[in-house]
């Protein structure tokens, strides 16, 4: 099979890239060893968060937020997004100082999306919160969506514009042929002018195959979800100094996360829930919302995600090989960024340059450390 651009990984990053390429008339094939959204993109918590991003990510995240606010015009589906804000709650004075410093830093970069709110406004926003909190950092434009729906919408729109998605196609080896690529897979050999590695937790393996290694670690992140409850909280809740990420979805269920890691056997992709960590999480939730103590957890799961040592992704052209591109290592927060990553990669591939600076995300940043 031959195509202009071959994309490895049918997660949101791959689907978003395919969509932007297809919109610009470029032919592309997205291959996945499993099925679209089988991994992080289908399993994530759906948080759309600009709040508390690494400074390097702020411009991208703000641009992505604009796209999410208009998502229907892009993919013909609202992806079930809600913009109810995201909060980081302060439980004491020290927390509050930390958050104030953060807000000042973001303002000094010229951005206004993170604001401090006091106790009174916090309890107006979240009346159900345990009374001990003192204030919060708030981003009103943040919210959440439904990941698998978003992925399906991106994929279907890309397909309608000619992009091809092929499941059960695992890449075994990659060879540079002149300035193009030969990629051997479980379903035959693909030839392409350009190659994009957005293989999530496996992108390190693919980068090795491209002769352009990067220090990616795959980890399995856990989430749990409860039964449906009457609506009681709007914003997505985080805490200044405790592991908490917690939201009530449209259908009333609560999704509880907080960057907790499950046991992972990477070779077999088997994950095992670490209940003692989730127990801590459950305790944190009950500390903040004591009235939730009898709410039943119906399911817990873990999804495999790629992490970089500095917790920001690798985005850009390969420095070692021709017409090779990377977008991986989103370190647990790539769902929100995905629409803009597609734009960036399409520009990079078709124009050779990008509107937004991606200097901080270069794969070569790790060479210096070595």
């Amino acid at each position, binding site marked *: 099979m031959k195509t202009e651009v071959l994309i490895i990984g049918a997660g949101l990053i791959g689907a978003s890239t395919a969509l932007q390429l297809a919109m610009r008339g470029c032919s592309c094939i997205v291959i996945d060893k499993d*099925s*679209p*959204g089988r991994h992080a993109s*289908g399993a994530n918590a759906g948080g759309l968060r600009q709040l508390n991003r690494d400074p390097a990510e702020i411009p991208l995240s703000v641009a992505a937020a604009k796209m999410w606010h208009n998502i229907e015009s892009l993919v013909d589906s609202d992806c079930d997004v809600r913009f109810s804000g995201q909060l980081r709650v302060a439980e004491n004075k020290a927390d509050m100082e930390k958050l104030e410093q953060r807000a000042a830093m973001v303002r000094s970069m010229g951005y206004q999306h993170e604001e401090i709110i006091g106790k009174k406004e916090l309890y107006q926003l979240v009346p159900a919160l345990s009374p001990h909190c003192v204030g919060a950092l708030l981003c009103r434009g943040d919210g959440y969506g439904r990941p*698998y*729906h978003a992925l*399906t919408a991106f994929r*279907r729109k890309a397909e309608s514009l000619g992009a091809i998605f092929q*499941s059960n196609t695992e890449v075994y080896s990659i060879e540079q042929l002149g300035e193009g690529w030969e990629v051997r897979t479980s379903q035959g050999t693909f030839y392409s002018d350009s190659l994009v590695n957005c293989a999530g937790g496996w992108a390190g393996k693919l980068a090795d195959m491209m002769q352009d290694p990067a220090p990616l670690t795959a980890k399995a992140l856990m989430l749990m979800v*409860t*039964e*449906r409850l009457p609506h009681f909280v709007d914003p997505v809740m985080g805490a200044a100094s405790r592991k908490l990420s917690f939201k009530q979805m449209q*259908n009333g269920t609560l999704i509880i996360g907080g960057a907790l890691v499950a046991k992972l056997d990477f070779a077999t992709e*088997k994950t*095992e*829930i670490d*209940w*003692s960590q*989730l*127990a*801590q999480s*459950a*305790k944190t*939730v*009950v500390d903040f919302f004591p009235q*939730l*103590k*009898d*709410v*039943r*957890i*119906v*399911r*817990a*799961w873990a999804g495999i995600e790629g992490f970089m040592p500095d917790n920001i992704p690798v985005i850009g052209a390969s420095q070692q090989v021709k017409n090779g591109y990377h977008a991986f290592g989103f370190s647990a927060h790539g769902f929100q960024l995905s629409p803009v990553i597609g734009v960036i990669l399409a520009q990079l591939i078709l124009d050779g340059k990008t509107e937004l600076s991606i200097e901080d995300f270069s794969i070569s940043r790790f060479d210096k450390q070595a």
Partner: protein
Amino acid sequence: MKNHYQLVIVGAGPAGLAAAVTASEQGISCAVLDEQAAVGGQIYRAIESVPEQRAKVLGTEYQRGTALAKAFRESKAEYFPNTKVWSLTADKQIGLLHDGKSKLITADQVLLVSGAIERPVPFPGWTLPGVMQAGAGQILFKSSGVVPSEGVVLAGSGPLLLLLAWQYMQVGVEIKAMLDVTPLSNHLQAMPKLPRALLAHHYLTKGLVYQRDLKRAGVVTKIGVSDLRAEADENDELQTVHYRHLGREHSIETGLLMTHFGIIPHIWLTQAAGCKHQWDKSQQCWRPSHDKWGNTSLQGILVAGDGAGINGARSAEHTGRLAGLQALYALGVISEAERDKQSITERKWVKAERHIRPFLEAYFAIPQEMLATHAKDTIICRCEEITAGEIRTAVEQSHGDSNQVKYLSRCGMGACQGRQCANAVAHIVADAGGLAVSEKSHFRGRPPVAPLSLQELASLSEENV
């Protein structure tokens, strides 16, 4: 409760009790966990407390449980009732809930004897108040003698439906009709299996006696019923049962419809651990793959009883003992020769108990129309209220895999976690793709196996520090 046992047995039905007696005779540390308040499992529910009169009605098969329960009580196995197991991992860590507190324990060997559940079969109106599973009715009767005060329509298929009808008749419950959905073609399919079944003629005789008694009592039985449909009154409660029989539409007014469509293995724990499963075509269900000792694909995790594949209560007792012997052997307590020697009679019994099964499985097979080709408005996932039509749309949009259908439609994501709809969805997905169910994947099982409150989970952080 200790933090570690050589053998942990989940389930105190015939399989669990027999295994526990066998294993604890050799002095190993052995714990039996069961969410019920007392021993007996499904068949021998309330066996230690049942009044004599009720025991009589429940029949001689039921009374057999007394001796088993007694032997278990006299054994050294530690018994923990009211203990719900909500998680099991491949390295044999068990998450449980006891006295409102969670705890994680470990075991060298884990024997899962968690029995069977009634096969959920969606049909129009199955979620209405007034429609319930026959098993739930039997549970009420066994444990507290409660029976329907007004008349009941029984519908479905399988020996347990007949048994319940007979038990109800004994205590004077009005049975308005028995609607048997097994098509007449099943009888032909079953005929070649009859000679072997005759080797276990006591089961056949019992079935015939039940049928005769019901007929004598004037109970109308209709065989080959189709298009079963329950309809509600203005209060959204069951009012009428509609069905087709011999080419004609019929209906019966009733406030209570009890259905039963056979039983299937309880596989949530084996799934949680990651054991391999296979589609059993004859029993129309998934079951954990296992060898003749009950070893699953995961080392040190064993299955026996109806949870390993439906073979009935007697067989459960024998396979329980075999798994108990295997656990002792794996623990290094008895030799291979000793295990094999002690297993000879048990294995004979297992084989004998198997005689009747192919016949029963063919005779009571649920017709494909009820399993896969549901009308588009029929609710399949009752937790999330997802219809057959919505599932078929999701099949088209995804690439036709149960798990993708789940993500897209939310079926199987509600409070019961697909325990009710997994089979129906698998049938619909396979049917929509023109494939056999065996070629399609099952919902990935997600723990906890049973719902757990935030506070109950949080209690783990105090318990296991």
